[in-house]
């Protein structure tokens, strides 16, 4: 078997651009899914039954269907339902954000619930409102507790962005697979793709571990 690694160098610019889009998509998804997760978690915890039920349906729906299906659905069905045709990047972002928001909501809910009742009572006893207690006492503590979990969600998300390649978002996986079908250099390109994902992903995983050690709960 003759290998020709020059193909990797030949397309290095294209691959770099794909990797850039992967990173951008990860950041954009989290930028939507963190606030989205907080809002959903607060809805789940609110005494209002309607809000509660809406959030529950959202979370249980988007958490329990395969991400790839969600990607296809956003690409084929969403435009029909909404009447909008979104560019592939935005479509991929919608699919990922729906899924990750649902996960983040459960993370935040667990984080909020992990702050013991006495903390809220101490705030209430000072005369604070429930909203003030949430904002000044519960959420800041919950945020620290969920940071390690969010970090590992981030690391998974970074790799899961590859699923949007099926709708031709020009991120790393899609770019690499395109080059593969142009050049038929399957082994070289897939290896390069693995190396790039690993080189980018490993430091993130290490960072997540570090965050875990630094911010993990110790009381």
């Amino acid at each position, binding site marked *: 078997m003759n290998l020709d690694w020059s193909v990797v160098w030949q397309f290095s610019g294209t691959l770099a651009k794909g990797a850039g889009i992967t990173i951008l998509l990860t950041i954009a998804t989290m930028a939507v899914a963190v606030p989205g997760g907080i809002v959903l978690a607060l809805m789940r915890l609110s005494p209002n039954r309607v809000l509660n039920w809406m959030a529950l349906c959202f979370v249980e729906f988007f958490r329990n269907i395969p991400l790839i299906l969600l990607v296809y659905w956003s690409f084929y069905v969403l435009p029909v339902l909404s009447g909008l045709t979104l560019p592939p990047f935005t479509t991929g972002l919608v699919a990922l954000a729906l899924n990750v928001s649902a996960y983040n909501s459960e993370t935040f809910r667990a984080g909020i619930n992990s702050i013991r009742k006495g*903390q809220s009572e*101490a705030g*209430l*006893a*000072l*005369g*604070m*409102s429930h909203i*003030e207690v949430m904002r000044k006492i519960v959420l800041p503590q919950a945020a620290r507790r969920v940071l390690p979990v969010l970090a590992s969600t981030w690391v998974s998300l970074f790799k899961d962005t590859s699923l949007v390649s099926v709708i031709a978002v020009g991120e790393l996986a899609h770019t690499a697979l395109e080059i593969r079908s142009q050049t038929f250099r399957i082994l070289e390109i897939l290896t390069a793709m693995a190396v790039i994902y690993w080189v980018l992903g490993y430091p993130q995983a290490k960072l997540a571990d570090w965050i875990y050690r630094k911010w993990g709960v110790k*009381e």
Partner: protein
Amino acid sequence: MSNVTEADFGRKNASSTPVVEYRDVRKQYGNFTALDGVSARVNRGEVLCLIGPSGSGKSTLLRTTNALEVIDGGQLYFDGHPLPSSKAEIRKVRQRMGMVFQSFELFPHKTVLENITIGPLTVLGISEAEANARARVLLEKVGLTDKADRYPANLSGGQQQRVAIARALAMEPEVMLFDEPTSALDPETIGEVLNVMKRLADEGMTMVVVTHEMSFARRVADWVVVFDHGKIVEQGPPAQIFDAPREDRTRNFLSHLGWNG
């Protein structure tokens, strides 16, 4: 408790409106009756100690005072007015009561100083400079001036509880509620907290204290209320309760604790 008025004879400020008054207060958790018709009053400047076996309802009664527990029957008066039911009005009442918890409940993400200023800053809307100045005075009062910038996790239990007392005092409350303030403490740090409480009492602060520290109750309380099974067994001045209890159940409770005067 038909003899409340008789028993009230000789109490501090007995003729003026009590700061807190419980009238036939009831509280139910499912089938469990936590408070079974409790009537008592706390006069201005008085230290009232609630004693009794664990689970007898004394902490529940304390927690109804600032509506952390909502009563199921009877009435509760604060400064002559029935405890309001609207959330906004309850907040106003809570601002005038300080509470100290068994497990301190300091805010771990805030420094000692911030723990003390968070109430006034959030609720009273005073300036940061004023809140800080007030906090420093209180830190001096509880003997922790040098700990202002520490985090609660770096303090001993006794120090944390003293900060918690300062945090409650920062709201300039009319009454302080203590829920077993020394039960979670190492024996060697109990004294420092009790001393702060004693000083507060000497300054004339109205206090309701749930405690297992009988010598504190004996020494500092103006009035002692003995609980058992959600009811008041006996109430009276400490000399009566500790030296000449009228009820067998009071005697039993005290002898279980090894109290011998």
